[in-house]
């Protein structure tokens, strides 16, 4: 059988039309790529996670030039490119800078919707840490609220060693 293909741009429809395609289903090929990765946490990140895992402490570091206290810590200042050597322990309490409540479902998310996350500025830090919000009424979250880290029992040296931040009831 010979198939004659008419291959012109139909300006009205905006598609190239081929007369034989009217009667057939468009063909697709199903595939999947699953690739394992092993990411190096790095020198500064390793210490940050070891302190989280072993001591439930949150450390940042302070730029010797511009004075910015970074949490999470980094080896080189993001702003002035100075080498950072000074470690600073920051609190496990902080202030919520902003947040969202996620209502859509997506299996990539580490929680089932609805759930909340935000940016938390820990006491003593100049930058914000991204994290989940827990033990909180999703309708009652507000910017500026005080929050504290809740640590997991079985800590592995990763960001979810902090389970989430919850509202702080200060005396």
């Amino acid at each position, binding site marked *: 059988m010979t198939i004659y293909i008419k291959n012109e*741009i139909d300006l009205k*429809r*905006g*598609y*190239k039309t081929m007369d034989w*395609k009217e009667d057939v289903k*468009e063909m*697709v090929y199903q*595939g999947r*790529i699953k690739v394992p*990765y092993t*990411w190096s*946490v790095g020198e500064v*990140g390793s210490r940050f996670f070891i302190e989280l895992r072993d001591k439930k402490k949150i450390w940042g570091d302070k730029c010797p030039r511009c004075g910015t206290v*970074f*949490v*999470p810590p*980094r080896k080189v200042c*993001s702003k002035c490119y100075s080498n950072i050597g000074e470690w600073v322990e920051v609190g496990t309490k902080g202030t919520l*800078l*902003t*947040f*969202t*409540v*996620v*209502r*859509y479902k*997506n299996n*990539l*998310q*580490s929680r089932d919707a609805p759930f909340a*996350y*935000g*940016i*938390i*500025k820990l006491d003593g830090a100049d*930058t*914000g*840490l*991204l*994290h*989940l919000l827990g033990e909180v009424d999703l309708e009652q979250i507000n*910017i*500026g609220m005080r929050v504290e880290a809740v640590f997991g029992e079985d800590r592995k040296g*990763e*960001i*979810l060693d902090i389970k989430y931040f919850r509202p702080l009831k200060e005396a």
Partner: protein
Amino acid sequence: MGNRVGIVGVGQTHHRSKRSDVNGQEIINEAVSRALAGAELTIEEIDAVVIGNMDHFEGINYVDMWSVDGSGGYMKPIMKVTTGGTTGSTVAAAGYYQAASGLFDTVLAIGWEKNSESDTSAAIATCANPILERETFAGAIGPLAAEYSMYMKKYGATEDDAHLAAVRDHNNGANNPYAHLRKRVTLDDVRNSPMLAYPIRLLDMCPRSDGACAVIYASENKARKITDTPAWVVTTTTRHDYTHFGDADWTIMQTLEEASKAAYKKAGIKDPLHEFDVMELYLPASSCAVKWMESLGVCERGEAPELIREGVTDMDGELPVNPSGGVICTNPIGATALIRVAEAALQIMGKADKRQVPDVEKALATGFGGCSWSDVMVLSSSKPR
């Protein structure tokens, strides 16, 4: 300052949620064919090709290689650039740089995406830091939502302010035959659409589209021979900031502020609200359509909600924004920012049909990649000095 360069041809596909009737090469070919036809050029007259799309989106690498049938790049110098959301504007910048260098007379810039071929959210998640941020903050919607929450708190902006900008873009999109979403909406439609991530609702957010766009640049002498109405490139600027999402002050978009400031300085623009006739902005959500106007220097900080409420950026306002319907109507991501440049060029050339703003002399196009970096390009009907 490089040599003077004009945009002489623009082509794009009719963008859709799914184009399973064509593969990657074929969808690229559609846009390139239309750009060549528009400029009355043949592929032989193209000296160099720049092409880009998103990393990981279709799961096929080296688009510079395998797309040659679509791009027309056989035995030509091809360069791939991919910079996330700004891919299209980086392709635009790279194409301009090549022509402005004087090494090439005509350069074809191509951006494309077939979002339907994979899981966009999964692909976007791969741009987040896997160790620190992917578990807690990945995705496109949440960070934009958190950004607007912060802005609302600081300046008293409302969800309705963003919804009004969504109404503007959706209704503009209805006039654009190439737009993916072309349905007119009301404020109540946006208010009642499903909440995705507070405060962003479905009709506030960009869709995922299949589509491609191509733009042809020509050197000064060549441009004049091709068309009487080239869209001259005055300047383009890029700024980056990101290391960690929590580092930035999200009440402003600092990269856009710095990029536009630098571009205006080079272009001699002091009053963007009155000196630009139209803007085609990469606004991935309607919330950005409010907040980012301040970063573009169109108004002072905290004044953008008023600007939107008064209709200043509507089609009949002082400064029409997104006559094409913008990103919330059409989003083939690797092409999205190039479409901004293409639409701005069409406005200058007077070829924007039902979405044409009258007498456009100066136009601004932007690109955004998250989070967060910004590109801006200034186009003009008159040759830059």
